[in-house]
């Protein structure tokens, strides 16, 4: 796995079909607070890219640019672009409706956040929003999504139960199923395991490996072992700057920047 991605990263050719998105000179402001500073990098298709860095460095802020969640709150401002490939649309463009962006790019949050509805309705919600009402089609897709999130075995006999009755880890996998049901092009994870115990954590990590073949993944994590385990590429951020971006195995073994080295060797952060 790692060797193949290394080989690909080593080839200089910018074959666009290998990339799912490109971030170009992205700046982000919370009101007057300049939170992301001139960030550029590329997301390779069907790979997992991890965002690491000390608390407050802007990982979540960057992640939430990808589905325009910042648009929900007043005073936030983007500059630069995030270009979705291969169709070459800048999803930060004002003319692009954030709803369209969110239909194409799914998100899993830090705290499991199922709706207070049944397990079935939670997974079906994204489909319903897209106007799907056919019962059998919904049922098929819900089943597929729950299988994709490795939850089907545990819940297939109680799809009408309230989602709140699931355990924390199950709730998080339900949220992944909810995001998977609509077949997103990119799936964003914001510290998806920070509220979970080690066993639930490893099941989510496995899951992320399993779904890579159909969706490009961008994951924020506080846990460097997790970044090393699940990601192909890693971006190290510090105070709103992207300090270093590279193949995960290389970045952890021989970081180019002193600050990255200090962080991953645990000398600070």
């Amino acid at each position: 796995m790692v060797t193949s991605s290394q080989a690909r990263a080593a080839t200089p050719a910018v074959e666009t079909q290998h990339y799912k998105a490109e971030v170009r000179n992205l700046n982000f402001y919370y009101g007057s607070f300049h939170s992301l500073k001139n960030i550029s990098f590329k997301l390779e298709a069907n790979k997992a890219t991890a965002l690491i860095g000390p608390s407050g460095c802007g990982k979540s802020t960057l992640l939430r640019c990808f589905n325009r969640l910042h648009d929900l709150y007043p005073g936030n401002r983007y500059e630069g672009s995030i270009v979705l490939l291969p169709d070459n649309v800048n999803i930060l463009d004002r003319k692009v409706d954030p709803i369209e962006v969110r239909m194409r790019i799914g998100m899993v949050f830090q705290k499991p956040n199922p709706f207070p509805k049944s397990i079935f309705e939670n997974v079906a919600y994204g489909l319903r929003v897209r106007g799907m009402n056919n019962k059998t089609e919904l049922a098929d897709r819900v089943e597929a999504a729950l299988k994709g999130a490795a939850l089907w075995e545990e819940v297939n006999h109680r799809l009408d139960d309230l989602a709140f009755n699931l355990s924390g880890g199950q709730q998080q996998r339900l949220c992944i199923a909810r995001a998977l049901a609509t077949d997103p092009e990119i799936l964003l994870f914001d510290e998806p395991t920070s509220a979970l115990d080690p066993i639930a954590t490893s099941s989510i990590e496995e899951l992320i490996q399993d779904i890579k073949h159909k969706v490009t993944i961008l994951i924020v994590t506080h846990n460097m072992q997790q970044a090393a385990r699940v990601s192909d590429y890693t971006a190290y951020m510090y105070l709103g700057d992207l300090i270093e971006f590279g193949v995960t195995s290389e970045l952890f073994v021989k970081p180019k920047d002193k600050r990255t080295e200090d962080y991953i060797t645990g000398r600070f952060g």
Partner: protein
Amino acid sequence: MNTEKPSPPSARLDAAAIAELIRTGKRKELVFAILGVFCLAIAILTLTAAFLSLLLDGWSRIRPEFFVNFPSRRAAEAGILSAWVGSFMVLIVTMVAAVPLGVGAAIYLEEYGQKGGWIKDVIEINVTNLAGVPSIIYGLLALGLFVYYFKFGQSVLSAGLTLALLILPIVIVATREALRSVPVHIREAAYGVGATRWQMVSQHLVPYSAGGILTGIIIGLARAIGETAPVITIGALTFIAFLPPSPISTEPPFLNFDWLFSPFTVLPIQMFNWVSRPDSSFHASAAGAGLVLLAMCLAMNALAIYIRYQVRKKIKW
């Protein structure tokens, strides 16, 4: 930067000092607790006394005839038929007007109004202050607006709309509280899968906060049912020996809205009328009507508490 502040002496206390501190703390607590119980006792005793005297005076009147008789010149035969039917009809108008207006306004203020926009600020200030306006002022406003300007007359409709205005702030404030209690991460979950704002509001916010909204509506209606001043101002009659026309008819279109324009009376006004009579046997009738009114208010509040309890049990954020 070099001049370092000397670190303060240790804040560590010995056991005796800690015990002394705790003792003074506890003593103050005890004084406050006694004071609190005393205040509470005054409030509860007064309320209980008022309720008991009402019960004592009015219980003899609580018989089936009391509910099916019109008011009469003879106290023993006087009933509250026209009053409770009037109260009921007015309450329906109030509900039909206040619920969509109040809930709609609250949703607008919470979810649509530009945060920080001046229009929103002006509305906000108005809504909060509206709740403090004396109810008779609403009566005066309604007299000019509904009775004379819109020519609804001194009718059920005018009264219902007046009371709707009166409880609008209650409904708005309660609805906003309920909407606000839906956590941000649930909203973001809905937006995250591509929901529009309207889908988020109608499929998530409103259903999840329905318990709180309903509670607010019921508390508002309980307030409306006891209001007297504004209803007198717009000209409710104090002696009515007939019912408004029935809303249901045997011929098509089966529904009939003449009752909206009918003269009416309501329970508190009936009470007021009986209390102000010199013949003291009417005072028992007034107490009986008071009991009925009180029972209705308590029942509505109990329903509100029950709904809130049920919803809390189901949805824990």
